């Protein structure tokens, strides 16, 4: 029995330490599934193609429309208008048209397929560290902490850095969270449905080149189709010219409407580049002088030429999300809990987040197992019987007796003979879409849910609990939950 205990414990602990990003059913010692690439467990709402080489937003319908419009219009131009123009005027026209077309297509694909500058989400330890710092700053009081912002002075201008609840980071200046892609993007310009991707630091120059070259192409096609019709009508008459090449009419219509929007957009972005602003900042009027006399853009280099060069010819940073890298099998984890709740609680109860980890690592901790909201106060958990508790669990002494608390349903601790609290999460959070929770789960790893060493003995439930635990992590909506749990945790550990 003792051997059996240590065996299951070892399995538990091993799976506890291991990978942050493993799938729910995957356990290290099984190694049934092949290694996954990081794009497969990416927490954002992006779509990946070609084994992670191509990255796009979720909604790509409009992108295909853009592609079709460009291909069809250019196709018609080359098929119907170019032979006439090459003959009548000069063969240079189709050549220039061809070059422009290829350039447009290249920049469009580059804009759409590349990583706009997505900031990877914080690792669990970073998030815990930040939570701790924020807590210290707030004085640790109040159910709802004030909005988390940090002020920083950049070139004499005060800029507010906001905390992103989804990504668990303080956003760098000029970064913004795209709700469509569910990512924080560096130097976020806007989310463009026409290219099917966000426009950010890494693909802004391609986007600008795309709209600039598209404006030239549109004007080029428009001008030469008109020329074709005019020349043709000189020879045959206007109506017969139109009858001979009906495609030209379609091209003219498409180009006419496109010109206004595309050229307008190019002009707007030229202005933005020359003043080194993003669309986001311009719309919000962040650096507008209307806000205040001393309000100026701290990122501008002062002159238009430098701003343009910096935006278009500056160094291209590499992608931070490493889509095609392999998921690491084992990453040393400091704090098993991955969400603010437990770490927060641990911090409070232990006065240092490290203590939260080390008790887990080194000795029995008095940490309550998990935070959840089902307001069960101590009593047995018949309903949670989904997780069977193995014998050894019951005999493990936990640090302290656990008094019933209102919110933290850590009845597990109460007598060390209860089921793991993992079960609680299932009931509380079944409302969360499983998909999303699995996603979050991948990111956060349920193995990191804290449990006192006693809990680790429950080998079999661990694997089972992974999927159930997944549901409970939802940072933004459970802020108040955090607070409640923390209160409970503090009470528990203080006994």
């Amino acid at each position, binding site marked *: 029995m003792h051997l059996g205990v240590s065996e299951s*414990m070892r399995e538990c602990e091993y799976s506890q330490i291991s990978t942050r990003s493993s799938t729910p059913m995957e356990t290290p010692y099984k190694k049934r599934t092949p290694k996954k690439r990081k794009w497969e467990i990416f927490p954002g709402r992006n779509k990946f193609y070609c084994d992670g080489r191509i990255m796009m937003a979720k909604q790509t319908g409009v992108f295909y429309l853009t592609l079709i419009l460009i291909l069809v219009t250019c196709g018609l131009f080359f098929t119907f208008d170019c032979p006439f123009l090459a003959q009548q005027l000069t063969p240079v026209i189709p050549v220039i048209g061809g070059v422009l077309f290829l350039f447009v297509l290249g920049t469009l694909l580059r804009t759409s397929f590349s990583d706009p500058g997505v900031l*990877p989400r914080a690792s669990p330890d*970073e998030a815990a560290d930040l939570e701790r710092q924020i807590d210290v700053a707030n004085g640790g009081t109040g159910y709802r902490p004030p909005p988390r912002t940090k002020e920083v002075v950049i070139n004499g201008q005060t800029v507010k850095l906001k905390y992103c609840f989804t990504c668990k980071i303080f956003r760098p200046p000029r970064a913004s969270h795209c709700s469509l892609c569910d990512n924080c993007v560096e130097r976020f310009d806007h989310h463009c449905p026409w290219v099917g991707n966000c426009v950010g630091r890494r693909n802004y120059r391609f986007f600008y080149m795309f709209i600039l070259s598209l404006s030239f192409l549109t004007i080029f096609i428009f001008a030469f189709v008109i020329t074709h019709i005019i020349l043709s009508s000189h020879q045959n008459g206007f109506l017969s010219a139109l009858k001979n090449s009906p495609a030209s009419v379609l091209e003219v219509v498409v180009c006419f409407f496109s010109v206004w929007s595309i050229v307008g957009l190019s002009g707007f972005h030229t202005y933005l580049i020359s003043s080194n602003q993003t669309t986001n900042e311009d719309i919000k009027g962040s650096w507008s002088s209307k806000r205040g006399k001393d309000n100026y853009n701290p990122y501008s280099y002062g002159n238009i030429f430098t701003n343009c060069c910096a935006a278009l010819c500056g160094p291209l940073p590499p992608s931070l999300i490493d889509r095609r890298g392999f998921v690491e099998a*084992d990453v040393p984890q*400091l704090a098993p809990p991955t969400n603010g709740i437990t770490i927060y609680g641990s911090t409070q109860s232990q006065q240092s987040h490290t203590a939260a980890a080390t008790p887990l690592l080194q000795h029995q901790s008095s940490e309550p197992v998990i935070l959840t909201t089902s307001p069960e106060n101590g009593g047995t958990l018949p309903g949670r019987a989904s997780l069977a508790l193995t014998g050894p669990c019951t005999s493990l002494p936990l640090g302290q007796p656990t008094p019933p608390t209102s919110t933290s349903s850590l009845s597990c601790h109460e007598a060390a003979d209860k089921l793991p609290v993992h079960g609680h999460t299932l009931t509380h959070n079944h409302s969360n879409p499983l998909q999303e929770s699995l996603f979050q789960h991948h990111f956060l790893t349920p193995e990191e849910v804290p449990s006192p060493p006693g809990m680790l003995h429950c080998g079999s439930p661990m694997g089972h609990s992974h999927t159930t635990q997944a549901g409970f992590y939802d940072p933004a909506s459970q802020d108040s939950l955090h607070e409640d749990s923390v209160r409970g945790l503090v009470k528990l550990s203080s006994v």
Partner: protein
Amino acid sequence: MATEFHNLQELRHSASLANKVFIQRDYSEGTTCKFQTKFPSELESRIERTLFEDTVKTLNNYYAEAEKIGGQSYLEGCLACATAYLIFLCMETRYEKVLKKIAKYIQEQNEKIYAPRGLLITDPIERGMRVIEISIYEDRGSSGSSSGSSSVSGSTAR
């Protein structure tokens, strides 16, 4: 149980991970990559202040070099644009070259300075350039020794 756990850890590391310190970004000069040189209190007993500051300053210099906007970067940008960015199939960008230098530097620092003191620096690129993560390890034998001022303490748990 604790012993068995430690045996397991030993399979992976010779010491147990005790704490992690995160050096945050310094945005006072804009969006360029720069890390704060403020000496974290957790490292006070582990490493000399000057060594730490030297490391961070050197890293900051490397990043500044990577992101420098000047003649070479313009040339690279224009050349890339002219070749429709196909040139990057054969050539590395300057940024990537500097990142390789940084990786090598960090490895060297870890080997020479940090590992002997039970510390380990994680390359910021692995953390999305948000932080420099310094892991503090505690020797198995000296569980009583503190690995930082406020940290791991068996005592606080009791």
